[in-house]
């Protein structure tokens, strides 16, 4: 069996409000799955719950990362097991440079006290930055502080490239990007595609999927997946609009 990120019958809420309702989805490694849906349908909540955000309450369900239950683990443990979340709104960390931040994240993945190869690290960091067309000076800037929307997203993809997770969830990575930035970020993601990594690409619009062509498309509505299909489903959705999904649901 292909290792996968498997979400089974997940029910979750924030406060009194139920957000995920019996949500199930399996993303095998090596595949890119798009999760589409209108605003307020629970897409970002899903991303945060997978990453272990403390604000949400999970009533029931299971999440397996390569067969290991990760639901209820601390966010850092989940991260080190191989789940990466590219944030829609990444936090600023004043005074902490990008180079030091990524380095700290890598050191956290090493055995305690193991030596860190700084030379190899910088070589790799610079190579990835070149690919993302990021200026070298970027390394000494503080994480996300004063970044434009495009710089923030590029910085997320840089971290993704450096940390090499087993699964990456991209939360509305296309929001706030102009067409050039969108292309650069998408190319960055495409370079990371391969048999070792599974992607969950959360997006509102079909536009991103022209650049990151998904293996599967899922339509999310009111806390669960209501439609799954191939990449053509995204085009159908684009043509018909979300009202189509609504009407279809009403007739069932």
């Amino acid at each position, binding site marked *: 069996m292909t290792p996968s990120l498997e979400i089974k019958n997940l029910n979750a809420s924030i406060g009194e409000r139920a957000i995920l309702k019996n949500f199930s989805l399996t993303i095998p490694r090596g595949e890119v799955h798009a999760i589409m849906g209108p605003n307020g349908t629970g897409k970002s909540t899903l991303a945060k719950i997978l*990453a*272990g*955000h*403390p*604000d949400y309450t999970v009533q029931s369900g299971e999440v397996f990362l390569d067969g290991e239950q990760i639901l209820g683990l*601390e*966010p*850092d443990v989940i*991260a*080190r097991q191989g789940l*990466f*979340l590219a*944030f829609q709104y*990444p*936090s*600023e*960390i*004043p*005074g*902490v440079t990008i180079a*030091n*931040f*990524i380095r*700290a*994240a890598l050191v*956290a*993945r090493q055995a305690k006290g193991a030596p860190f190869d700084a030379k190899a690290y910088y070589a790799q960091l610079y190579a990835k930055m070149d690919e993302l067309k990021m200026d070298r000076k970027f390394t000494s800037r*503080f994480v996300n502080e004063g970044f434009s929307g495009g710089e923030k997203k590029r910085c997320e993809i840089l*971290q993704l490239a450096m*940390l090499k997770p087993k699964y990456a969830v991209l939360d509305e990575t296309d929001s706030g990007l102009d067409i050039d930035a969108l292309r650069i970020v998408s190319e960055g993601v495409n370079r990371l595609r391969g048999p070792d990594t599974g992607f969950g690409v959360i997006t509102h619009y079909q536009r991103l999927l022209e650049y990151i062509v998904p293996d599967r498309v899922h339509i999310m509505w009111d806390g669960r997946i209501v439609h799954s299909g191939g990449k053509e489903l995204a085009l159908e959705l684009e043509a018909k609009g979300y009202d189509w999904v609504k009407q279809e649901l009403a007739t069932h």
Partner: protein
Amino acid sequence: MAEIDEAQAQRDALAIDRSKGDFKYKEDYAFDAGIGLSPTVIDYIAKVKGEDEWIREFRHKALKIFESLPMPTHWATSDLNNINFQEIRYYLAKSQKPSRTWEEVPDDVKQTFERLGIPEAERKFLAGVEAQFDSEASYSRMKEELEKLGVIFCGPNEGLSQHPEIFRKWFGKVIPAGDNKFAALNSAVFSGGSFIYIPKGVKVAQPLQAYFRINAENFGQFERTLIIADEGSEVTYMEGCTAPKFETATLHSAVVELVALKGAKIQYITVQNWSANVFNLVTKRGIAEENAEVRWIDCNIGSRLTMKYPGVVLRGAGARGEVLSIALANDGQHQDTGAKMIHAAHNTTSNIIAKSISVGNGRSTYRGLVQIPKVFQNCRNNTECDALLINEHSRTDTYPAISVRGQKNSVQHEASVSKVSAEQIFYMMQRGLSEGEAMSLAVNGFVNDLVKEFPMEYSVELKRLIELQMEGSVG
């Protein structure tokens, strides 16, 4: 080259025959100042030290001032009332040092030594198991080199008795005994500390370290330091270390006076990490004459209560003063720190950057005093104070007192209070950092620009120390 020398000095210090140190103190053993504060105690101290009559009188006068001044609780914390002056031993000869075995040292202190990578021999000294960490060898080597330059680097006793023509003129002049209650206390019972004179035009390349010298004497509770940089000279002085001082003596009250004569530069660097039972009540002030510069770089960690407001009196035209300070108040601790800049000449500039971190129910207070009177022109002050709150019950207060009058004088004041947000922590944890690691990274980021001002070896230790302090702050 410098690093090699220092490393060699460290090794020498560790390898030394310990019996050597005993000789110097033999004559002290007979003396016991007893517990409590009285004119008799003052006489004891003066006699033990073989002091001149004028110093004895200075001490007695100071004692009277100390007794006459009220506790400054009308503006400072009432926690000061918990100091019982009659229970304190004001002069400890070496044989009276509290002794304990390594087994009695609390585990958390031992762990901290381990984590900071403190050499074995130093741990015992720092934990109070051994009365002194013998650094006589490195001290005398340093002293020899300094003597070639004409630099005097000694204790107050030697300074006042052997070089009165240099030190007497300034002793107690920058900070008179009557400056405040604790300066008066120090003036009455001071012992230990550094007296330094840098001759005209001499630029001392190596920072002078109190660490070696003071450890070669008694660990002073009431240290007295006087640094005089003669015209055009330059010196950097470093006191303290990042290792926790584990002590039973609860009151520490130092007085530090700096005198930068025309065109001289003094940089005074402090890193202190007191144990949580210590009252650390310090008076530090420098005078900067024409075109001179006094710079205080100060890092306060630990203690029950620290009160410290390094100041510069800008007495000559073109003088510059600077205070860079970092304070970290953990659970049950109060860091009441700040800076004073007194502009007393034309074209004087001052800069204050103070950053505080409050953890748990720790409290940090910033007090700033900036005075630019009407009679002077082209004076500038810049003040920035930033506070970072870590937990819900962390607390910070800011009391800036700025008085700027007259034409062509300017002042700029910025203050900020920030919190490490739950979203920031989540973001960092999503990258694989534990909650503690995330918190210490955020805190290190907050003080990053100031830490850079510390010498390399201190800034690395500081980073590690902040990490240690932050570990218990989460969960």
